[in-house]
């Protein structure tokens, strides 16, 4: 039973990690805390569901559609809300406020689009195949989710640390103006960063929609709040940290829902955020930011 719950936690944690990696990537490169990431995730789930129910496509296509929608929405967000602020080199405060505004707009549009209803994937979207292993029941869907998460993480790590793009993205993260002198086009880099971030959120949306078999306009908010805990625990801007912390939070969440009570689970997770901030604000893998603490006394 305990093993089973831990397994379930790892599956959910994998999706948390996918979602949180996009958030931490944008923060790492652009120093923007994208409060609208939950809304992008939710629209990804909507688009995936639309592909399955209205267009009658397979799950694979739904994942692609969710990914594309999330990515494009995220890029649109960057162009409309963040780019004007970046050009003025506005403080962090402004980007957070703009993102809150965008979040509100996207969520209420989704509420209109879905008539405030909870939508479901059709019963036969994904074949229910159950494997038994060491007394645990493992669904094929769970295996697919873990596989997709691992694949995405490896792809992202390669992209960031093994390719030319990653080098450029890290240069832009260091200083946008210096990167221009080196012949890097920051606009192109930001486009890719936001697209990847949104695409990850879109995939996570379709997967979460499948796991809990419910897609509704408020689904982004709880995940966004948990993702904050994940990225702080993993260290802001750290991709590997987001993966490890995502799995940890997923397991803690599932165990506290199973063994204590669903209501307390949220309180436990958010208290954990407080604890991390007090004991080790840089998280498990983060390095101290110069802006984190100003020397004083």
């Amino acid at each position, binding site marked *: 039973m305990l093993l089973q719950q831990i397994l379930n936690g790892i599956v959910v944690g994998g999706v948390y990690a996918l979602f949180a990696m996009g958030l931490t990537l944008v923060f790492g490169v652009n120093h923007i805390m994208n409060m609208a990431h939950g809304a992008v995730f939710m629209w990804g789930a909507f688009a995936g569901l639309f592909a399955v129910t209205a267009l009658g496509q397979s799950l694979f296509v739904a994942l692609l559609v969710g990914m594309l929608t999330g990515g494009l929405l995220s890029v649109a967000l960057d162009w409309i809300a963040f780019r004007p602020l970046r050009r003025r080199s506005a403080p962090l405060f402004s980007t957070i406020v703009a993102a809150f505004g965008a979040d509100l707009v996207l969520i*209420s549009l989704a509420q209109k689009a879905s008539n405030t209803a909870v939508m479901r994937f059709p019963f036969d979207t994904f074949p229910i195949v159950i494997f038994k292993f060491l007394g645990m029941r493992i669904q094929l869907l769970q295996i697919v989710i873990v596989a997709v998460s691992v694949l995405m993480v490896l792809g992202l790590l390669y992209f960031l640390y093994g390719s030319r793009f990653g080098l450029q993205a890290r240069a832009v993260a260091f200083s946008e103006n210096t990167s221009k002198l080196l012949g890097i086009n920051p606009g192109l880099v930001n486009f890719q960063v936001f697209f990847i971030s949104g695409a990850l959120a879109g995939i996570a949306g379709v997967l979460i929609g499948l796991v809990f078999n419910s897609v509704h306009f408020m689904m982004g908010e709880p995940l966004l709040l948990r993702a904050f805990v994940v990225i702080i625990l993993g260290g802001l801007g750290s991709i590997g940290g987001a993966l490890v912390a995502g799995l940890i939070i997923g397991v803690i969440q599932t165990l506290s829902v199973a063994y204590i009570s669903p209501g307390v689970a949220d309180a436990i997770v958010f208290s954990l955020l407080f604890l991390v901030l007090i004991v080790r604000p840089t998280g498990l893998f983060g390095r101290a930011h110069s802006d984190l603490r100003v020397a004083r006394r």
Partner: protein
Amino acid sequence: MIDLLLSYRSVADIVLVNAVLACSQYIAFRAGVFSLGTAAFASLGAYCTALLVMQAGVHPAVATFAAMAIGGVLSALLALPLSRLRGVFQALATLALVQIVLSGTLNLTEITNGALGINGIPRPIGTLGLLAVVAVVVYILLAVGGSSIGRAFDVIREDETVAVALGISVDRHQLLAFVLSGVLGGLAGSLYAFTRYTIIPTDFGFHMLINVLAMVVLGGRLSVWGALCGATILSVLPEMFRVFADYRMEFQGGLLMLCIIFLPRGVADSVIVWYRDKRLKAQLAHQEASI
């Protein structure tokens, strides 16, 4: 004429309660504390007031002071961990606070009646009473803001290193600002409970947080007038455009985005800055003419 004014009393109540909320948010921003915790303090204040008045039979005024005390004590306890953090970390920590309080009020059903909320709260305060409370709050904030403490807040917000070099204790001033924010949050929650007759946990969630943030951003976050101005605009506009009530959220979100992009100082602060510039220019011209 009196009838006309009376018919707008409920809107005036909303404006006044929101003004106290906005003041709670303003004083935190003024000292450079990126706190989003106003909704949490308001929630505690509202529940404290409602329970004390309805179940313990305490006098409403005493209940309001208890609500302010709870907000103040909680914010004082939180100030220590928050003082180790800056910027986005403070925002996330206080966001977590809002969530913890929300899940507390939702799940402690024996005390708070859970998602059903508390109904039938008596209303002991009139519109004039609310106006008096807001006037006192504004007077205190103006007094604090105009004193050396207010100057210290400004320096800390603009540049902490300079503040330290000037011998200003950053921790102590931010503690003061955050406790003031907590006390005002508790007060606003208490007034909210008295004017709405009913409270539910989700009143004090994500939506209130964004709403309060929007008021301060729209009005201007560096002066009390900005907070008042923002609270008035955002409470009156939805009532004026009842026809578009369905699109209220889209409108508010869009306004928040447009405002931070095109009018980053907010309405009141932009006017104040414009007026100050004009006066300075006139003075300069006068001086040059006399030379």
